[in-house]
């Protein structure tokens, strides 16, 4: 299993991101090297408090510069936005308690930081939104022939039996289908998909059609396992999660770690192929919802109400 997040290499050649990185470096160096001089330029007194605040801000700028130029990630851009808000707070306080000397310089600095904040917010929002295409892969071996396993998967309307996030798949035409899935925060997402490749016993590939809320595609390949052990199944899913990196983090927070989910999906596919259905225990009576059920129901029979809910 792996996630292939291509955002790092793309951001590395993004002029805006690199520009902000260099800006951080150019600000950070004098702040750390000569905090007293820098404070004067801002028009604030050369007190110990102002000097140390300037040094701290400088260290933060250098960290952001290292991140943006070294291993660029949208998190660094959001870090800059946070830093800007801190700076604005400090400058506002400086303006409020100002003794008048160098007031013009402080006002100019505040205006500059406001402009920088706007740039940072713009960069963070735009770079985040298209920064989280995710590719997941998982593999399993099922003790059946490639043709049998292919036929089971080809029955698309059965996918929700083992794929935890899918609520429904409806076949709408020879190559088209309509998919409905649960998403974080209980929101449902629907899209139409098209089967792009279909080679019996070998491969099925699909892609969401234009206008889908979440662009996604996937493929499943079947190959004979060595030693007559049945069929090796390899699944690849690619999708743009809503909310980009933020959405991904939120999904993880709510226990829907996508790697693990796909792994479990394949395990359940194997259960259906080899035993006929998804195995339920008293602790995990919901079958495919098992992972979301921790801490689980105790390992004891369910009451009638619990039973109704679990089998619903």
């Amino acid at each position: 299993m792996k996630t292939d997040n291509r955002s790092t290499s793309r951001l590395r050649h993004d002029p805006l991101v690199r520009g902000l990185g260099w800006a951080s470096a150019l600000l950070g160096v004098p702040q750390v090297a000569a905090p007293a001089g820098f404070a004067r330029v801002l028009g604030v007194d050369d007190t110990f408090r102002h000097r140390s605040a300037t040094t701290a801000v400088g260290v933060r700028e250098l960290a952001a510069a290292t991140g943006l130029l070294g291993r660029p990630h949208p998190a660094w851009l959001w870090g800059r936005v946070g830093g800007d808000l801190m700076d604005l707070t400090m400058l506002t306080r400086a303006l409020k308690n100002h003794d008048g000397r160098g007031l013009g310089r402080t006002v100019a600095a505040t205006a500059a930081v406001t402009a920088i904040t706007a740039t940072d917010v713009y960069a963070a929002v735009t770079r985040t939104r298209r920064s989280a295409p995710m590719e997941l892969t998982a593999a399993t071996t099922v003790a059946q022939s490639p043709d049998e396993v292919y036929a089971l998967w080809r029955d698309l309307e059965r996918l929700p039996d083992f794929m935890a996030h899918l609520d429904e798949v409806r076949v709408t035409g020879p190559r088209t289908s309509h998919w409905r899935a649960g998403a974080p925060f209980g929101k449902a997402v629907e899209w139409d998909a098209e089967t792009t490749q279909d080679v019996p016993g070998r491969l099925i590939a699909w892609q969401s059609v234009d206008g889908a809320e979440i662009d996604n595609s996937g493929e499943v390949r079947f190959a004979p396992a060595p030693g007559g052990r049945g069929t090796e199944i390899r699944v690849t899913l690619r999708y743009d999660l809503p909310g980009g990196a933020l959405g991904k983090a939120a999904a993880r927070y709510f226990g829907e770690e996508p790697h693990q989910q796909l792994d479990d999906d394949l395990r359940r596919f194997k259960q259906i192929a080899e035993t006929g259905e998804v195995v339920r225990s008293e602790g995990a009576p919901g079958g495919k919802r098992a992972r979301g059920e921790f801490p689980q129901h105790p390992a004891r029979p369910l009451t009638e109400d619990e039973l109704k809910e679990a089998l619903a």
Partner: protein
Amino acid sequence: MKANCWTGRNSVEVQDVPEPSILNSRDAIVKITSTAICGSDLHLLDGYVPTMQKGDIMGHEFMGEVVEVGPGITDGKLRVGDRVVVPFPIACGACASCRAELYSCCENTNPNAGISEKFFGHPTAGIYGYSHLTGGFAGGQAEYARVVLADANALRIESDLGDEQVLFLSDILPTGYMGADMCDIQEGDVVAVWGAGPVGQFAMDSARVLGAEKVIAIDKETYRLDMAAAQGYTTINFEDTDVRSALLELTGGRGPDKCVDAVGMEATHGASHVHLYDRAKQAVRSETDRPHALRQAILSCRSGGVVSVIGVYGGLIDKFPAGAWMNRSLTLRTGQCHVQKYMKPLLGLIEQGKIDPTRVITHRLPLTEAPTGYDVFKNKKDRCEKVVLTP
């Protein structure tokens, strides 16, 4: 119904719980006639196995009468009224592991495989009443139990053998037998067995059935050693004898050809400082298992011999004697028992009178007194060897 439930570390309680119902189409419901407390239940009781939850029903050794059969069980493979013994690991019979008779490694029966995989690298089979790591299945220390994939697992008893004759086919008899089977016993072999609990006793009986020349029992409970001696086995009490010297003496300086660890993760050691060292590390969870028996078996075994491990380990051990194991060409074999592989042949041995499983039973209690049963068994009170409960 009444069921014996785990209620926290070192505490079990008989509670009223709902009766089981069919959850999967190949389930069967069994009215339990006999059930037992296993040494490995004590690891759960003590809290050494993670993922136990309050209210979990304990027990994985049980038998009874089928009272309901799911719609997926066809061709009369199992019928209401059948008398069955239920193997503790749940196997599907269809995956690669099951086809290779590695039933306790079944790839399909653990709904919590994702968690099990994090502990063990790859998931293992579901087990009744044995924590959520092995699936969260309700156990058999109860009046009724749901048997999963019942047509592939339950062993029908057609003869008129009593419950006590066949109950242990569910776990401890096949487990002991597998311990001896993995030793690949050859003519003239001396087999040493660490642990003279019920599984150790059955490993000794099995070693003899499989042709061992001499069987040696190692333990510190004199009543358990007496039980082994009564069967004609040589005994070593590790509290008053140095085990390695005694084994060299008994084997003409060679060491036992085959060694069986029927102790597992909560071993005690004759030398109290060694015991304290591992007990302390276990208490702070810097190792989870105390492997004294395993270390001693490896150091004692003759070069080129086999060390067969059937005592349960759950996590990590410390100071594994890898040098002895590697340099002296030892073979280490192990596994949770593949019960389904051994049930039928062992039923045959019982019918022929070659093995008498009832010899280990010392206590018979009603299910409602299960907590007392745990107490006498865990604390080795009243010369307790094996407790059988009847609902």
